[in-house]
């Protein structure tokens, strides 16, 4: 018996050589981390609900957003009007749904424009470097120190009100942040060995940029985009609050809040519904954006 115990071991597969973890791609790992982030997921689902409200809401409502019912002005939320009516008897719920369309549209468009302009400029600066990079960064730095809201206000005063001008103003002031992040990412990635490997295989600069650098920088780019949206929505609401937003009868949440402000004492729902929706939307985008930023951060990989 002792001899058996002390007999040499017949070896099976060496367990220590096995992979400790299955290898997962960067995207899968990041998505998994995002899904595990409860606040971010809650934010995502609420946003999905809001989008469906924006798209489908007006179809289910018996009223149009500009429909005036003078006998029923300033009615509190009740049977016929889920969210009540405003000072012209328009159904607040339908207007909120339309406002959702406008705010979400502005937010997403601003983020997309931000993406296009910011990524273009940022990747140019980051990949070419040298003089062009310096010039671009100087411009960005000097524009950065000017309070952007002041510039937006001035642009609105000049160009007149309307969704298109809001978007232009937001893009002119907003590209700086995205460009900086993209530039930083590209400069970091440029030094990594896989770029040198691609160069050694004969890839052109353009190919490297589009097929290697930008896709690898997508993580922080998407996170930044998601955080741009609430900022755009806030700016639109802010501008409307100052009287520079979209004009009547189009309803954006900002104009609705602005109109509801003087009536707050007696008809509070006219202010709180639009303001509440602005807050919830911004909150959800912030939670989602934060979650994305954490999920795509390569330093936090387990």
């Amino acid at each position: 018996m002792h001899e058996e115990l002390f007999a040499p071991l017949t070896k099976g597969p060496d367990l220590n050589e096995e992979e400790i973890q299955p290898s997962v791609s960067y995207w899968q790992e990041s998505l998994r981390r995002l899904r595990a982030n409860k606040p971010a997921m809650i934010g995502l689902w609420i946003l999905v609900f809001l989008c469906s409200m924006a798209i489908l809401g007006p179809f289910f409502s018996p009223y149009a957003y500009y429909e005036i019912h003078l006998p029923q002005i300033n009615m509190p939320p009740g049977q016929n009007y889920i969210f009540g009516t405003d000072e012209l008897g328009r159904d607040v719920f339908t207007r909120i749904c339309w406002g959702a369309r406008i705010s979400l549209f502005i937010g997403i468009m601003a983020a997309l424009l931000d993406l296009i302009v910011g990524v273009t400029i940022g990747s140019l600066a980051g990949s070419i470097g040298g003089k062009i990079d310096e010039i671009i960064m100087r411009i960005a730095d000097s524009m950065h120190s000017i309070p952007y809201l002041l510039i937006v206000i001035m642009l609105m005063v000049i160009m007149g009100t309307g969704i298109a001008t809001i978007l232009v103003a937001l893009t002119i002031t907003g590209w700086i942040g995205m460009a900086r992040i993209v530039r930083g990412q590209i400069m970091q990635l440029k030094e990594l060995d896989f770029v040198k490997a691609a160069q050694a295989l004969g890839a052109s600069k353009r190919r490297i940029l589009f097929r290697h650098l930008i896709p690898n920088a997508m993580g922080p780019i998407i996170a930044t985009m998601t955080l741009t949206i609430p900022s755009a929505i806030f700016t639109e609401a802010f501008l409307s609050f100052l009287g520079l937003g979209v004009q009547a009868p189009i309803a954006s949440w900002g104009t609705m809040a602005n109109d509801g402000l003087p009536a707050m004492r007696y008809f509070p729902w006219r202010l709180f519904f639009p303001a509440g929706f602005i807050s919830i939307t911004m909150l959800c985008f912030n939670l989602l954006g934060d979650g994305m930023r954490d999920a795509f951060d390569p330093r936090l990989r387990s």
Partner: protein
Amino acid sequence: MILKVADLNVTFSTWKQPVYALRGVHFQINEGEILAIVGESGCGKSVTAKAIMRLLPKHSCLINHGQVLYQDRDLLTLSERAMRSIRGKEIAMIFQDPMTSLNPIKKIGLQIIEGLLLHHPEMKKSDAKNKVIDLLRSVGIAQPEERFSAYPHTLSGGMRQRAMIALAMACEPKILIADEPTTALDVTVQAQILELLKEIAHIRKTSILLITHDLSVVAGLCDRVLVMYAGQIIEEASVNELFNNPRHPYTKRLLHSIPRIDMPHGARLHPIRGRPPTLHCKSNSCAFSPRCDEAMNICCMQEPDKISLSDSHHAACWQLCRPSPSFAHSDAPLIFPDLPGKEDELPKEKMHV
């Protein structure tokens, strides 16, 4: 004997599963000796040091068993306040990277004075300053009066580590724990720091617990060595015994894997194949057995006991028990008074299968 560690068990709780970092560590430190703990990264050397000082992060780390006896007191049962009076004053520690271990926005002299005045509040500021300047001089920093007001980033790596040593020695502790003090330094500077440590041990009679993964450092400096693997001490010996007569297969492979300058050109190196275990589960088999060439059936069934080969040399390996086949062919000296008795008795007693 000045410090004794008995059956120390430390578990880390991660969000996946617990990690059993230390699984029954026993050793002791004697007065004025330099004791080394060697092992690969992740074997638990730093955890042992921090456990003695109770510097492990409280929210993720649990010392679930064991004793650390210092001057007849178990450090693990002391209150935080009592422990604070021991840290720095009786037991001090220096760390691996002196650049990040010193506060970058505070002057060096002030950082050292802080520790001094903490344990000797009755000391006058001017006396303290003079003492610190003397301390800086004694660790080999030139122009100590000027360096007193220097910031860490203005000093070279070697000088920073000397400053760290001065900081640790300020209150003249009985034990100095050095966690990889030379890993981040150039080889020439390494030698100087090691000389300094030797001086501290021999002249001031401070015991030094040196943690390192570099066997060459051990050979030049230490009196005794502990070899650690997967959270346990698998061999314990004096320096001569370890380098001339390693008994545990891991130690043997470790020494064998060191490249030598007198190797023939083109000779192969001999790494230890495989990887250390991930410490996620408590197993009752020898932790090294998957990587061991001399493994036997019993190695996978039960953890080996510590076998004494001499007064100072102990190893935990089933190979050292009498009935094992390679024992008869080994080069070990034949007289082992502590070896367990007759062949029949040994397996029956120890088996808990």
